[in-house]
């Protein structure tokens, strides 16, 4: 597959029209994938994607690119497995390389309780269509020889679940691939166009006010990351979302291969190797809500220390750079998507730390919702009104990590 997409990708820009059938606010992965699937699956091309900065500038360009489906509840396992399948065939479908690498994911257990959790994860995954198995210590060592099985004498590895479908892909390429695919079919993408208000008419959303003038729309979709509370409030909608920063860092190149993605929820870190060979590490969200992209030394120190407990080779590497993104956290660690109760206004948010892996399925399902007007079965459980109906989807399988 073509590794030099930058030379081949063809993005075509247009002057904004005053009216579209569908206006998608937010030119990240979810917004562009929704536009792409509207164009390819439903033939709806009178669509505009409005982006405040440049496409992929927000959290699509700041995540740690893990793709996995080993979640803890049936609704989520089915949903993310669909995403895993769509990612796996995206290069073939679009003819563009996204550096998709299936490398497997090891989720380590360091206590009796986490052994039980990983066994339960394997059972739930298998029952609902994702492949995950509980593996022995010998198999763990074979899958990832770099692991210190004694955990520095403090956090011994007692077991793990292994999710062979775990993969990574390059986030920028995912953005460009969806953008190109949508644009080639006539979708307009407008960068540096900030939405400043929603045009309301009798309780119905009829369009958006932008800094380049008003645009009327049959349907407005919020695919905003980070500023969704502000956008929704323009329609008088209050959201169960709190925005938290999440930090990550990469080291310089590790010359030996590091195959699986390794996760330890007891030690709160995850590690994978990028296509360039850098070791990519991340941890938990910061506890305080914030929209700031500020990074801190404390995170580097504590995350690196925890990671080196299990992966001692990391101590020979140097940290190249760190960055921060912001995560829209929902109370139950599941996304919030679909209808809002306001006519003409759909929403896809609550992507917390699991947004990148859900880009294809999120886009596909939102496109189906917009095209048919009916909520697809796969995303019905994630509706905004689940909180009022006392049907929250507490998912320990996502639990605030990647």
């Amino acid at each position, binding site marked *: 597959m073509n590794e030099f997409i930058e030379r081949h990708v063809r993005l075509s820009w247009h002057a904004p029209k005053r009216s579209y059938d569908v206006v998608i606010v937010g030119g990240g992965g979810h917004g562009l994938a929704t536009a792409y699937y509207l164009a390819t699956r439903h033939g709806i091309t009178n669509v505009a994607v409005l982006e405040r900065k440049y496409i992929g500038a927000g959290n699509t360009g700041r995540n740690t690119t893990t793709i996995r489906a080993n979640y803890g509840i049936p609704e989520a396992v089915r949903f993310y497995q669909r995403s895993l399948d769509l990612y796996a065939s995206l290069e073939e479908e679009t003819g563009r390389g996204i550096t998709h690498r299936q490398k497997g994911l090891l989720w380590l257990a360091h206590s009796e309780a986490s052994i039980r959790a990983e066994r339960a994860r394997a059972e739930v995954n298998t029952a609902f269509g994702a492949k995950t198995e509980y593996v022995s210590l010998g198999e763990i060592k074979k899958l990832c020889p770099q692991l210190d099985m004694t955990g520095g004498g403090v956090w011994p590895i007692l077991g793990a679940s292994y999710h062979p479908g775990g993969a990574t892909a390059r986030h920028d390429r995912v953005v460009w691939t969806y953008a190109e695919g949508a644009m080639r079919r006539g979708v307009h993408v407008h960068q540096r166009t900030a939405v400043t208000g929603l045009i309301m008419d009798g309780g119905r959303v009829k369009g958006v006010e932008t800094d380049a003038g008003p645009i009327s729309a049959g349907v407005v979709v919020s695919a905003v990351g980070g500023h969704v509370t502000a956008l929704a409030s323009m329609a008088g909608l209050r959201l169960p979302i709190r925005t938290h920063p999440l930090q990550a860092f990469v080291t310089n190149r590790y010359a030996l291969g590091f195959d699986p993605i390794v996760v330890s929820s007891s030690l709160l870190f995850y590690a994978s190797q990028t296509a360039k060979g850098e070791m990519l590490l991340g941890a938990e969200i910061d506890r*305080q809500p914030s929209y700031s992209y500020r990074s801190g030394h404390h995170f580097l120190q504590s995350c690196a220390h925890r990671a080196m407990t299990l992966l001692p080779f990391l101590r020979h590497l140097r940290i190249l750079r760190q960055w921060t993104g912001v995560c829209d956290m929902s109370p139950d660690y599941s996304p919030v998507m679909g209808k809002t109760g306001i006519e003409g206004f759909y929403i896809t948010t609550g992507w917390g730390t699991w947004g990148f892996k859900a880009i294809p399925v999120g886009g596909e399902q939102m496109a189906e919702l917009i095209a048919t007007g009916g909520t697809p079965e796969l995303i019905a459980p994630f509706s905004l009104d689940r909180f009022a109906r006392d049907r929250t989807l507490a998912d320990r399988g996502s639990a605030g990590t990647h």
Partner: protein
Amino acid sequence: MSIRIPCPHCGARPIEEFVYGEIPVVPDSITDPDKRNLDRAFIHNNPEGPTTERWFHAMGCRRWLTLRRDTRDDEILPVSPVI
């Protein structure tokens, strides 16, 4: 540089020593008791800009303080007197 919170007892200390405490505010415009409970349980104001919040100095004096913070850039605004 990580954020430093000015504790009225201990001086400026790194944010990692503190535990965040939200002050949930249900708008007065919501009057129905069920809707107020729902809002109190699940909905967040999630402000972009200056906000008032409580912090517990867990790894210090173990007292609560009230803080003004701008969530856009994490700038700490002047602290109110000890409560």
